[in-house]
């Protein structure tokens, strides 16, 4: 097989998925519309909270919306690309994973492309719109560095959330019935990254913000974009190096996945 041919089987998988999912057009349109509502509800919740108080964790609505938009677009895109890896426990239980492993293709990309939820694209677009509107309303003092960060930060967020999805799904290799534990870190992490981390406190903030790294998804990059100093005392350049955390998270998730798949023994069913 020539080098250039490598992506071809993956492209075929992707095309097949796109055709299959668009076949029932009305159903697909309903799915597209209902997916937007999840993010609409998240944004509405933030607006309702700001209706009650003028500031939240020391941030105004305009500032907070940059954080909301950044985490919304990053999470929605990661959910679109790799979110369905949550179903790995079904694949392990039904033995479908064995079929995937015997093929001469990477297991992870196959699993993702076998069931790419194209309907979630509407949610990603809505998240990007919220982000763009928030940036416009926040009155950002643009510099070349900020112009780069405004694009890099959400992309890094996609990588970070993707890493969290893969790492929490890989737990299924050890413990088939992972239940909803992964949700605490994927959806919980998304909720955590939606608000300025100053609203949390104690060990809970330390664990989610710094231990698991969720502060570097949207909070620190947003501070750098807004030109605000961190009330918690980290220097201003942290926002620019925050995307590095995404690379570390991806490396850690890849390691967990690799160990997991090597550890995997077929269920024999």
């Amino acid at each position: 097989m020539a080098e250039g041919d490598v992506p071809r089987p993956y492209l075929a998988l992707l095309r097949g998925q796109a055709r299959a999912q668009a076949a029932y057009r009305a159903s697909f349109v309903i799915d597209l519309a209902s997916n937007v509502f999840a993010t609409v509800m998240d944004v509405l919740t933030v607006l309702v909270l700001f209706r009650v108080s003028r500031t939240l964790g020391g941030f105004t609505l305009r500032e907070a919306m940059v954080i909301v938009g950044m985490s919304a677009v990053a999470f929605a895109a990661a959910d679109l690309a790799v979110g369905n890896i949550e179903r790995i426990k079904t694949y392990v239980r039904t033995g479908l994973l064995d079929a995937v492993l015997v093929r001469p293709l990477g297991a992870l990309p196959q699993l993702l492309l076998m069931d790419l939820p194209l309907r979630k694209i509407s949610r990603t677009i809505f998240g990007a719109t919220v982000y763009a509107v928030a940036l416009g309303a926040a009155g950002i003092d643009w510099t070349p560095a900020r112009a780069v960060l405004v694009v890099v930060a959400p992309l890094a967020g996609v990588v970070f959330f993707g890493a969290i999805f893969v790492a929490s799904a890989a737990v299924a290799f050890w413990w088939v019935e992972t239940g909803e534990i992964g949700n605490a870190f994927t959806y919980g992490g998304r909720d955590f990254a939606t608000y300025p981390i100053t609203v949390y406190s104690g060990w809970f903030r330390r664990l989610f913000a710094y231990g698991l790294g969720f502060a570097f998804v949207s909070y620190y990059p947003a501070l750098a974009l807004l030109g605000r100093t961190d009330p918690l005392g980290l220097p201003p350049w942290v926002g620019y190096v925050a995307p590095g955390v995404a690379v570390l998270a991806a490396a850690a998730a890849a390691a967990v996945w690799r160990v997991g798949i090597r550890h995997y023994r077929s269920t024999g069913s």
Partner: protein
Amino acid sequence: MAGAFTNTVFGFLRCYVLLAVAGAASRGLAGGYDRAQLATFVWAGQGLLAVVLLWGWSELADRIRSGDVAGDLLRPVNPVVSYLAADLGRAGHAVLTRFVPPVVTGLLFFDMYVPGRWFTVPLFAVSAVLATVACFGCRYLVNSVAYWLADARGPMIAWVLGSGVLSGLYFPLRFMPDWLAVALWVATPFPSLLQTPLDVLVERDPPAMQVGLVAVQAYWAVLLISACLWVQRRAERKLVIQGG
């Protein structure tokens, strides 16, 4: 265990966010709740969520699609009654396994509001039972859509997205303008699923209003179960026609 763990993590998230709202609101009161009341609202809400089982029930829709529902119809008991009885049993079990852990966690890490009126705890118990019945009614109706559409996925997504916001899980409905909150209470069953029992527990309102809200819940519970019985009769007539 896994579910209780996830409910607890979300309890921390929601509690900190609402406490930040109260901290920045005027006089420290957010929507009429003080900090301790909000903490109790969040943690009892995380537990009650699993007791009323807001999400994750598709048994009836699955049985309709696979045809197994025919077995339910042969029994001498009305399916609405037998499913409701099973659901109340499940809810009773969930009180111990899913309600207690988050509430204990909340007590350990936050200053919680402890009810002062002697009748609040029994009234909360009544309210929680009514919430379970009303929530069962909603879930049964959403599942019943499968009798007509074969696939109830669309209505179920709408239910999951709408019920979290409108029942007071994400934020107390009193954070919204008064006219909107009242309209939701009167025109939709959602506030009766979580908001009412939680308001009763934290004594958000004077006693008369506390009892009045539970009466609204009772009205919704009766209405929803009647709707379930009616829908079930219609569905059975249709199934017979289909079966030839």
